[in-house]
């Protein structure tokens, strides 16, 4: 009996692996045909490289936060291609270093939301009935408050700091993930291979981690890519309002907030950080859209 079980399990696993590999490589193939998604992907890789090597290119203390009053408010020139700010700091250097902050917050908040939201989604989708009702009503309550507003409320209560910003953005990202994960689980919960796994007495953890999750990741990955864009926009927005990253850290939204004060005479200060935010969000949106189309079963 045990032997039979093992054989069945093995054949199940190998079939699934084969199928999964096929689906995944098909999705990658479809993705590689979309020029816009490739452009997005390349920009994201460049941004990640910039973020990783920012402190190789610049010294944080010397180039990023040290004030240099003799060089304040210099318009774009050969030495300072994006000009300098009100404290004489090079705007290009601060924008490049800002990539690190935006991506760090975007990815961290996203991961936290993804893990917690997915757990809620699994509880709701896999066990269903009462737990589904309770979890989804709770998520509905959070969805009834616009995300940025919820984040503002949390930052207002906890105080402004990078940690609190990440907490705020993570919490507001949980309900969408829970919804996406629950929806994905509902589509695979009752298919034959899950029933088969149940029939051979597999544990819930094995069924969820080994069988359900790998087949539910597509919509979660799409949501993650698009949500990073939303988090980066929200980080910039909150910092612009004075509720996010605090001076002297080089955050794009905070740089725009300073630029606003000097908009009449030194408009270049409001130009470049905005372009950086836009390109980053655009890249994640392009990749997210491409992934959504690539994973969409209707495209097959």
């Amino acid at each position, binding site marked *: 009996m045990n032997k039979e079980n093992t054989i069945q399990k093995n054949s199940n696993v190998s079939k699934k692996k084969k199928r999964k590999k096929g689906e995944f490589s098909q999705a990658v193939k479809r993705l590689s045909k979309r020029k816009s998604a490739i452009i997005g992907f390349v920009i994201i890789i460049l941004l990640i490289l910039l973020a990783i090597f920012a402190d190789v290119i610049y010294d944080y203390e010397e180039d990023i936060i040290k004030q240099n009053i003799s060089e304040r408010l210099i318009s774009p020139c050969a030495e300072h291609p994006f000009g300098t700010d009100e404290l004489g700091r090079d705007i290009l250097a601060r924008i490049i270093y800002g990539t690190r902050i935006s991506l760090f917050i975007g990815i961290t908040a996203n991961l936290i939301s993804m893990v917690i939201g997915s757990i809620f989604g699994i509880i709701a989708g896999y066990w269903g009935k009462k737990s589904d009702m309770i979890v989804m009503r709770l998520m509905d309550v959070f969805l009834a408050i616009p995300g940025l507003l919820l984040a503002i409320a949390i930052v207002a209560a906890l105080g402004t700091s990078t940690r609190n910003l990440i907490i705020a953005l993570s919490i507001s990202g949980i309900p969408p993930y829970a919804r996406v994960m629950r929806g994905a689980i509902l589509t695979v919960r009752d298919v034959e291979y899950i029933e088969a796994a149940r029939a051979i007495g597999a544990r819930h953890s094995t069924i969820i981690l080994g069988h359900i999750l790998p087949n539910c990741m597509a919509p979660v990955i799409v949501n993650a890519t698009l949500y990073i864009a939303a988090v980066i926009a929200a980080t910039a927005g909150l910092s612009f309002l*004075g509720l996010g990253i605090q001076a002297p850290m080089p955050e794009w939204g905070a740089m725009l907030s300073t630029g606003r004060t000097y908009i009449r005479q030194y408009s270049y200060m409001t130009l470049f950080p905005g372009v950086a935010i836009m390109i980053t969000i655009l890249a994640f949106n392009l990749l997210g859209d491409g992934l959504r189309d690539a994973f969409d079963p209707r495209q097959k």
Partner: protein
Amino acid sequence: MLKFIIKRLAAMIPIIIGATLVVYLIISLTEGDPARIMLGTEATDEKVEALREEMGLNDPILVQYARYMLNLCKGDMGISYKSRNPVSVEIGARLPNTIRLAFCSIIICLVLALPLGIFAAIKQNTWFDGFCMLISLIGISMPIFWLGLLLILLFSLKLGWFPVSGAEKLSSIVLPALSMAVRSMASIARTTRSSMLEVIRQDYIRTARSKGIPERLVIRRHALKNALIPTITMIGLQMGSLMASSVLIETVFAWPGIGRLMIQSIMSRDTPTVMGCIIVLAISFSIINLVVDLFYGLVDPRMKSMYS
């Protein structure tokens, strides 16, 4: 229809109670004793304790929340720490400005988004389609407060067509409303385009065309009605983002609305006003969603049957 409205209303009440409770609990985490803030640092501990008792701050948090909501129903949201005026008066003075701004931006948004989406779909794979989708992609990716700053730079400082900030002149609303509209416009145009593309491939459209109905009428009478259903959902979703945008845009343009009041109150640690603003915005969001849902029921009979 009445049954649908009543059922939808009944479903909304627990959501509003839940959302306001979440906001109340979060804002209650704010550091500092409200009684101490009101009396100042020099007040004796006895006085502070007496005020805490009087304000009901020693009661369990859920009792405090219930009391807050009952008072809210009577229009009482407490007293602002900063201005010493009732919060309801402060919010009441600014809410019409926020509503005016949101209304104007949704009008601009729809006037631009619907034709863009529809024509992009009709002219699929032409330069016009490509151009519309590029514009909408940029619109979605552009931080709205930055767009606001760019509009100020061009139309106020360079061309001098509109005021930089404030709400004194009639033309003051143009730039903030436009900046708020662009993002939602982009999302709505994309949704309209894709749902229109799906609809114009349906059999009944082919039937209409083969009957010899002019293309204009096929689009207007047959395709548009069905294509607009996902668009209405998107408009509902965009309301939330418009509300969040209002906080940013009101700050950029110094627009005297509830979003700006909220940010100013956060900066001056005026907790009752912050609480009032967020709760009013959260309730408004739920009400707008209800209206969108009711409208949805009106245009899509399948939706109504779910509730009957």
